[in-house]
């Protein structure tokens, strides 16, 4: 935990009373723990972003370019012409307030500018002043204000306190989506080089090296090699996956987080074991080694530039279709953007499961299938030999990731898988799952260390729902299908609900998967003894002693 992060009992005292002063008269104060470091010059330069320089948000001087106001206003004008969502969402809000207490950051912080409606008003007020007749004429009384440095800083602070989770958009009577406003806000900030380094660093890495973590080709292989060693010692099976192999049937793409750190690596081991068991003709790519897309948290153009690698690599390798791993915003991008940006993928074929023959008709033009869809289909057709009792020490609940929930709608597939590989599954309260799920508090590139207070505040609603099932049913494992969740929720659980672990769904699958020719497993992928094994060993010892005696 970062230094200075308040303790849970301190942090959970939240005052929801708005200040006496009107919000336009309350200038932004950057509170340490609530924001991230500014993007470094080299990371901005790496992708050709403007105004690349090292800067510190806490400084008075943000080293902005000359005439930055014009740049921003032109940027707004440009985007009004390009995005109906932006123009419409600036125009039609009636400020009913239905979105206010739906935002995890508002619930966790009580800061009124975290109410989605007010976060949008931060930009709307400037739009009114500079782009509408009424705003120009009436000014303040029409809710209009000029673009000033204070306003710009306020934007930066609050557009990086939104995880683009879209929960507000579920409740809005007009479907106004704060994620769209935040995206536009961040695009505008990027015109001035005002990104955060936790986003810009991975973007630069991903652009040059193919993945956010900057893993070079040989490192990817050696990381997977370590996993293969572990798998061998647990199952006795040596798996030999292929990389950058031309002519494979399927290209597999997953977030690089799964290659790097616990508990994501266990999920990755799950993929490797599953594909081996199926004898799947697939390949990894070191060039398109990132499913996630931090470019999506900067600008639409950057997101497209990073995403382009997936189709390009599929084409180069001559695969038939693409399979995607467990990831949240990756799937928002794949599902809703990829084909539009970089399609049509007419060099690929409509995906068909080589194991079951199922045609994935829902992916017939994008030609990319979600691994939960793929695995659910396998289980449904009885293609996997599963022993769910190996997960009997777990009481599992499932966290719906924002992007796959509200930007895709994959709810049943992961649940179906979990129920087939675990015997103890409990849902969190209805208002905190599925389309009403709460964000981990660290999405959209905010899972840094320096903004820990923000993350713990934003994660409170999610954690609180886990705490409920933890106390009621003894839930001790939080399953999910998102790499950022696996990283962020672990920290969140340690803070709010100690005693609850975090896992990817395919880790659970791999633990339950009885592989052909495997040795008797004594531990799960984490090296923890399997349920029942300890007692067996004890009994075995006793028997021996008796015999000896």
């Amino acid at each position, binding site marked *: 935990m970062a230094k200075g992060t308040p303790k849970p009992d301190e942090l959970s005292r939240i005052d929801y009373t708005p200040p006496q002063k009107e919000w336009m008269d309350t200038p932004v104060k950057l509170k340490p723990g609530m924001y991230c470091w500014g993007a470094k010059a080299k990371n901005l330069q790496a992708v050709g972003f403007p105004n690349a320089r090292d800067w510190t948000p806490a400084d008075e001087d943000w080293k902005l370019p000359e005439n930055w106001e014009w740049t921003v206003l032109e940027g707004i004008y440009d985007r009004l012409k390009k995005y109906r969502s932006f123009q419409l969402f600036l125009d039609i809000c009636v400020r*009913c307030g239905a979105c*206010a207490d739906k935002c995890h950051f508002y619930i966790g912080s009580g800061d009124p500018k975290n109410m989605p409606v007010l976060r949008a008003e931060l930009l709307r007020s400037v739009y009114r002043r500079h782009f509408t007749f009424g705003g120009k004429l009436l000014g303040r009384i029409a809710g209009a204000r000029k673009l000033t440095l204070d306003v710009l800083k306020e934007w930066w602070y609050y557009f990086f306190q939104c995880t683009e989770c879209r929960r507000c958009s579920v409740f809005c*009577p007009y479907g106004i989506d704060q994620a769209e406003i935040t995206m536009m806000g961040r695009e505008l900030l990027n015109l001035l080089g005002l990104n955060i380094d936790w986003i810009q660093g991975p973007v630069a890495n991903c652009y040059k090296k193919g993945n956010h973590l900057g893993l070079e080709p*040989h490192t990817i292989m050696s990381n997977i090699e370590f996993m293969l060693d572990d798998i061998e010692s647990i199952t006795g099976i040596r798996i030999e996956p292929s990389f950058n192999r031309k002519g494979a049937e399927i290209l597999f793409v997953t977030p690089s987080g799964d290659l790097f750190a616990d508990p994501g690596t266990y999920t990755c081991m799950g993929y490797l074991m599953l594909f081996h068991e199926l004898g799947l003709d697939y390949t990894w790519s070191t*060039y398109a080694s990132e499913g996630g897309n931090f470019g999506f948290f900067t600008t639409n153009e950057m997101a497209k530039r990073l995403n382009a690698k997936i189709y390009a690599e599929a084409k180069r390798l001559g695969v038939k279709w693409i399979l995607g791993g467990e990831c949240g915003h990756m799937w928002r991008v794949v599902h809703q953007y990829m084909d539009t940006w970089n399609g049509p993928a007419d060099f690929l074929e409509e995906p068909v499961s080589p194991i079951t023959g199922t045609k994935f008709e829902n992916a017939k033009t994008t030609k990319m299938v979600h691994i939960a869809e793929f695995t659910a289909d396998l289980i449904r057709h009885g293609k996997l030999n599963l022993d769910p009792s190996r997960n009997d020490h777990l009481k599992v609940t499932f966290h719906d990731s924002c992007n796959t929930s509200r930007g895709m*709608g*994959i709810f049943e597939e992961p649940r179906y898988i979990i129920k087939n590989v675990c015997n103890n599954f409990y849902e969190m*309260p209805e*208002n905190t799952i599925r389309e009403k799920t709460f964000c981990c508090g660290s999405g959209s590139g905010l899972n840094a260390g320096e903004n820990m207070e923000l993350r713990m505040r934003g994660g409170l609603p999610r954690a609180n729902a886990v705490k409920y099932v933890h106390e009621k049913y003894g839930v001790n494992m939080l399953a999910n299908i998102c790499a950022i969740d696996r990283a962020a929720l672990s920290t969140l659980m340690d803070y709010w609900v100690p005693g609850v672990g975090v896992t990817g769904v395919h880790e659970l699958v791999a633990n339950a998967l009885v592989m052909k020719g495997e040795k008797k497993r004594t531990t799960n992928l984490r090296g923890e003894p399997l349920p029942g094994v300890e007692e067996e060993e004890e009994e075995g010892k006793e028997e021996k002693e008796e015999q000896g005696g």
Partner: protein
Amino acid sequence: MRALFSFIVVIALVAIVFVGVKGANLEFLFGVIIPYAALATFIIGFIYRVVKWGRSPVPFHIPTTCGQQKTLPWIKDSKIENPSTTAGVIARMALEVLVFRSLFRNLKTDLREGPRLAYGSDKWLWLAGLAFHWSFLIIAFRHLRFFMQDVPVVVQWVEGLDSFLQIGAPLLYITDVIIITAVTYLFLRRVYIPQVRYISLAADYFPLFLILGIAISGVLMRYFIKVHVVGVKELAMGLVSFNPTIPEGIGVIFYIHLFLICVLFAYFPFSKLMHMGGVFLSPTRNLANNSRMVRHVNPWNYPVKVHTYEEYEEEFREKMKMAGLPVEKE
């Protein structure tokens, strides 16, 4: 303050027409010229705004999915909350527009000791919103009797239904009671809920006061300060047949009612009230979740600079060869 400002504006509007009609005999201005001008502003302004939205494309396929997607045949998809077909989208939009589906989801978050967050159902905003909008629609529809020589049966049915309680004479309209109650509630929640007060602009109070003014003047006219109602219809018929007349002795309250309506019409296209048209264009609601089945085309999609495989291999070729990875160029 912002509420007070809006209130004063509405009062001033009433005063203007009162003085104009009572003092200066400007019946023709308030009874003919302004109504025509207001309606023209409304229709042209509305079209202008919608066309302006329409000229910006929907570059990406961004429906907010509120239910299970359509995938494998044995998984039941949520055909309306997460539609994959046009029929599903139409049903979703219909629910949204006719019964405010999304607002019906509304919850109230409550932080208790522990900390424990609780989410209670909170339907008041939905109920008041729905009551207000439907009453408004029914009232507007009822008013067709002033604009048609032979009033169609359906208008008479609606009127009969609206007054079926048969209270007083003239019969009390249920919608009159509902709209005033609902608008009052919507105003009070804006003032009493601190968060909502904090975000409210003058532009949020003004339409409420205006509509309240319209409703109250209408109620006064029907039940209390009677006007020469046959004269009102003659005036209305004159307007819609482009043969304007100003019958004698209608009563100033009618001109107040009419003028406030005109202000509403003229103000409409410049305000948040445009949500009436906007909701139909909302890309998070009016798109089918079929973006992996049907390619969504972005008209301004342009080529971007990417880091190609060749550039990548160029940088890492030696390392790749050492690791045993296949390369394109030896």
